[in-house]
């Protein structure tokens, strides 16, 4: 019976498992699962630091600042974590975009059924003029704002 086999396996000493506070820190994720499964490699700490230009690039694309060295370190760990994917053999495997990929997309009839709710929409905005949403002028590039010259690779 399966259950008996499981009990046998369980007799090996185990971590008390309240959470997973390994001394090596969150970077290492060791999962020694049962026999015959792949084991992800340990990611080396400090490998592949993200260059400053890329950091800046990301901040501009996301309009979110890292703000600290820790945040950059978190990104590096996230990348290292994600790198474990490369151990998987995905030759000939199609990417899966949606579990509903075999289903038909629902089509709506061309009727006017929404809109005409200007008041409701404007109500939630902090800055409104007449019936318009208001944005600050133009899109001045952020590097100019901090008096840095745009990088020559900008073009």
């Amino acid at each position: 019976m399966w259950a008996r086999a499981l009990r046998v396996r369980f007799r090996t000493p185990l971590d008390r498992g309240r959470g997973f506070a390994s001394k090596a820190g969150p970077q290492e994720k060791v999962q020694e699962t049962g026999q015959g499964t792949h084991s992800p490699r340990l990611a080396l700490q400090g490998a592949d630091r993200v260059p400053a230009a890329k950091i800046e690039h990301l901040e501009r694309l996301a309009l979110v600042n890292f703000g600290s060295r820790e945040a950059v370190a978190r990104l590096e760990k996230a990348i290292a974590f994600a790198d474990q994917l490369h151990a998987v053999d995905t030759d000939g495997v199609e990417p899966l975009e949606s579990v509903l990929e075999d289903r038909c997309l629902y089509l709506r009839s061309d009727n006017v059924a929404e809109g005409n709710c200007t008041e409701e929409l404007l109500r939630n905005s902090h800055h409104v003029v007449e019936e318009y949403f208001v944005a600050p002028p133009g899109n001045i590039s952020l590097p100019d704002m901090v008096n840095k010259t745009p990088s020559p690779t900008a073009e």
Partner: protein
Amino acid sequence: MLGRTLREVSAALKQGQVTPTELCKKCLSLIKKTKYLNAYITVSEEVALKQAEESEKRYQQGQSLGDLDGIPVAVKDNFSTSGIETTCASNMLKGYIPPYNATVVQKLLDQGALLMGKTNLDEFAMGSGSTDGVFGPVKNPWSYSKQYRERRRHDEHGDSHWLITGGSSGGSAAAVAAFTCFAALGSDTGGSTRNPAAHCGLVGFKPSYGLVSRHGLIPLVNSMDVPGIFTRCVDDTAIVLGVLAGHDPKDSTTVQDPIKPLMIPGEMDVSRLCIGIPKEYMVPELSSEIQSLWSQAADLFASEGAKVIEVSLPHTCYSIVCYHVLCTSEVASNMARFDGLQYGHRSGIDVSTEAMYAATRQEGFNDVVRGRILSGNFFLLKENYENYFIKAQKVRRLIVRDFVNAFESGVDVLLTPTTLSEAVPYLEFIKEDNRTRSAQDDIFTQAVNMAGLPAVSVPVALSNQGLPIGLQLIGRAFCDQQLLTVAKWFEKQVQFPIIQLQDLMDDGSLVLENGKLTSVSLT
């Protein structure tokens, strides 16, 4: 009354033994009494009382809308509720009042349910503890239970060692566990309903992806999110699911198949069942207590004649990595709309649109959210897209295939743990960062989201410390009814005890039906 099942209460309402207003007031009072749990962000007292009044009229006229008419429910604060603040526990949406109801909320309201309030969560549903929201962490009601206090190892006084609920739908879990409502909506992207359900001793149900509408659910990962249901018993879940399931023209990811009314039979022939045990879920970090319970549960099925076999889901160890890439990428995309222009927080910085956006997002999002946005954008960069995002999508297909293969080998339902351990104290939980915790805690649950399968966490027994432990059942896609049938049978066998909340028992708010509770002790 508060400890009864939905059907029982509904019957009582019909017979006039209790009125919706009485129920409502009782729940509101309990909410106040258990305020220290911090389960609710918004208590919609006026709205609920008004709804109770209308429900009462209906009952008086003998025209109740159904099993949910007059029943207090709560909704996680990432569901849009018209006219009621919806914050996602984030500064970004503090003060945001949506002009529409999420489809699932509307369905509940159309059935006459009473909306008690919006429950607390991790900010934008990112987290596994319900500790990272701007309104503070949610406390697990079991921290204050007689069962826990009598048996916990350390002899602490005071409140400093309260336990987390798990997450991210911890508020909804706490709300149901503390009897402030009969059912609550959560969301489940990687286990956010099942995880807190296990930690709070509740039934936490994740429907098949595409069965229940996501319109109005503020998304975390669109391709994996589903609305989740918390109740105190499987029957109640079935009632709620019956109301919520079905095609929504406003959500193109709901399936168009007609839904048969949900009927969970009282009896089930277990001998015809095949239970699968995924061997890769046997990880060293799993607590011995849960292991033992898992094993006993397998025995239980076997002893009733079910076929219990070991199956393999070989890509299990990669699923958390895959989830990490796909989740952060979608988060990066979904959060792009928060710029302060049409709604939500808006920074005072006004020099340029870009500057305003950047400042708004800096001020509005917490570290966790910002961190995921940055990671996600990294994976979506042109030069990384193939290596990370597409790669993750391919691995996702392998994971889905693993499940398909397992089910095709004759398995009806998979049996696994829900969590690695029982609920941990908050102080211990916060020693690790959010991403690490999520990666650890979601280990048994998020592969299910990647495959879009239905799953349910059923409370099984109390740990040595007197804390709830739940086990997870996973079903085939769109076989939610079968899954619930198995869950109901299982629940009946294990007879999980009712939480004995000290102060509620003391003041007579909570009256136990029997003087003593019995349960089939599995420990």
